[in-house]
């Protein structure tokens, strides 16, 4: 246990020292600034148009609904971008971690200490998980805070939504680490983003399948999600946070029509744990 803690601290310190944290922070703040400014102008102009419309009591109710729908869509658009950035961060952080240290030989002095190889995997995993948590707290929290400050709006099930996005980042990080235990960093990056692309397109096929009520398309999407369940986590997160009206009408590009079941979420959890176990097994058998 102590070794896992030492190694996770080492992983975190490495990210700080190699300016990964500072770069992520700086670019994250840029993102939040642009998002806030964009939100401000869209919100203000929408507001003035609405004020002009608010003549009758009937209109007022409609406008209020449109108002919330618009804000929710903008918020989900922001969180969708945050999710993508978190995934990129997760893939990049873990891609080089084992492969790079094996090829440079840095890992040799670590592995010849009285520690077990699984402790290295778990230590690094926890270090990255902590980093990704911080990143999402900044980015996701910042996006939500920006909307809340300007429009006094919080989506439903915010905590569940952010937790699912975090879960997705952890999943991608775990897959990236698994690849990194046997492949080069470059190959890892290729595989992880390839899988992400598969999940992405599978998700959209399932969405359109749901709109046009085509069972085959839905099945294709589900199969893609079983191969790599990352996108279904985002869709579940969006489902949790979208307004009930969007859910009913299926109007928003960032909302969800075909909602991944809780069974899918449980499957993803098992998927992550199994991936981690395989990584440990592969790494334990590997010649360094």
């Amino acid at each position, binding site marked *: 246990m102590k070794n896992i803690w030492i190694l996770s601290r080492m992983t975190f310190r490495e990210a700080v020292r190699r300016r990964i944290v500072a770069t992520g922070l700086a670019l994250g703040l840029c993102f939040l600034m642009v998002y806030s400014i964009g939100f401000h102008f869209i919100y203000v102009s929408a507001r003035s148009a609405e004020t002009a419309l608010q003549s009758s009591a009937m209109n007022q109710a409609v406008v209020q609904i449109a108002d919330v729908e618009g804000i929710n869509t903008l918020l989900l658009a922001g969180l969708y971008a945050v999710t993508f950035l978190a995934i990129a961060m997760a893939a990049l952080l873990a891609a080089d971690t084992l492969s790079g240290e094996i090829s440079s030989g840095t890992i040799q*002095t670590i592995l010849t200490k009285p520690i077990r190889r699984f402790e290295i995997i778990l230590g690094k995993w926890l270090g990255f998980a902590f980093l990704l948590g911080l990143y999402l707290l900044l980015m996701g929290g910042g996006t939500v805070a920006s909307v809340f400050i300007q429009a006094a709006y919080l989506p439903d099930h915010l905590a569940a939504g952010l937790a699912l996005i975090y879960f997705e980042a952890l999943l991608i990080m775990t897959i990236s680490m698994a690849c990194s235990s046997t492949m080069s960093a470059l190959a890892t990056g290729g595989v992880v983003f390839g899988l992400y692309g598969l999940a992405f397109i599978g998700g959209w096929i399932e969405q359109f399948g749901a709109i046009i009520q085509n069972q085959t398309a839905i099945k294709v999407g589900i199969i893609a999600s079983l191969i790599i369940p990352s996108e279904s986590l985002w869709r579940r997160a969006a489902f949790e946070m979208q307004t009930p009206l969007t859910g009913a009408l299926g109007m928003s590009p960032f909302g969800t029509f075909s909602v991944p079941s809780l069974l899918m979420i449980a499957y993803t959890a098992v998927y992550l744990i199994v991936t981690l176990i395989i990584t440990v097994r592969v790494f334990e058998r590997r010649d*360094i």
Partner: protein
Amino acid sequence: MSEAFAIETLALRKVFGEQAAVKSLTLQVQQGEVFGFLGPNGAGKTTSIKMLLGLVAPTSGSASLLGAPIGNKEMLRCMGFLPEHFRFQEWLTASEFLELHGQLYGMPGPDLRSRIDELLERVGLSDFRNKLLRTFSKGMLQRIGLAQALLNRPRLVFLDEPTSGLDPVGRRLVRDIIHELKDQGTSVFLNSHLLSEIEVTCDRVAFIRHGEVVRVMELSSLDIGQINVTMRAKGLTADMTAGLSQWGKNIQIDGENVSMSLSAESAMPEITRYLVLHGAEVYALTPKHASLEEVFIETVGKDGGL
């Protein structure tokens, strides 16, 4: 396997694909011994060391270090290792680097801190303790790597090419440290291409070729063996040179220069006296010990075992 040995291997073998990197390594290193591991490039030295350290799993055979099987946690607590390419966590400072590795050895805080101070001083890096390893030269990295290998006051140390990046002062330091380790009873397993270093530090050496030990020898036997001498003398006669054969053999004469092999160093003053008494003018009489390099080439072959 007994704890009498620091390292004991029996027919250790590693096959990569179709290729046997190490055919069959059988070797015994005594406790407290400085043991040199010699062989040409590609002889399987690195793979052998990696197997002993638990980095590479042997295909077959067995080995024990300090009486425990490879990878045993308690054994690893008593072992130190300086890898060949000494690539370390370059984003750490020198003292942080040692702290990390000391923690991984499970060393308690106060002991670790005093040990770090002591070792930084010993390898001459005290002034650089708060500098990032990224800014270190090759020689400095090797020094900090050496300190890392000694943190836990190991009973067995593996040094893989410990002097390759060092200037003469650094090499001297490594040599002194190896002598200190020997005095403390630490076993040292030294892999080096610098035969002159091996010659002055090791008790015994093993030559390996094609992944097998072809010869193990005590380095002191280099002196016990025959000595080649060369002499330069004027006024030598055929009778005189014939008389030299009572002290040795392989006598070769080239004008004033004579070379021959003696069985003992004590023959040298006798030869001088003999030549002078018979009227020769002796200008020089120089002993030439068989060097490790000659033994190396004789053992592994001029082709380097390729």
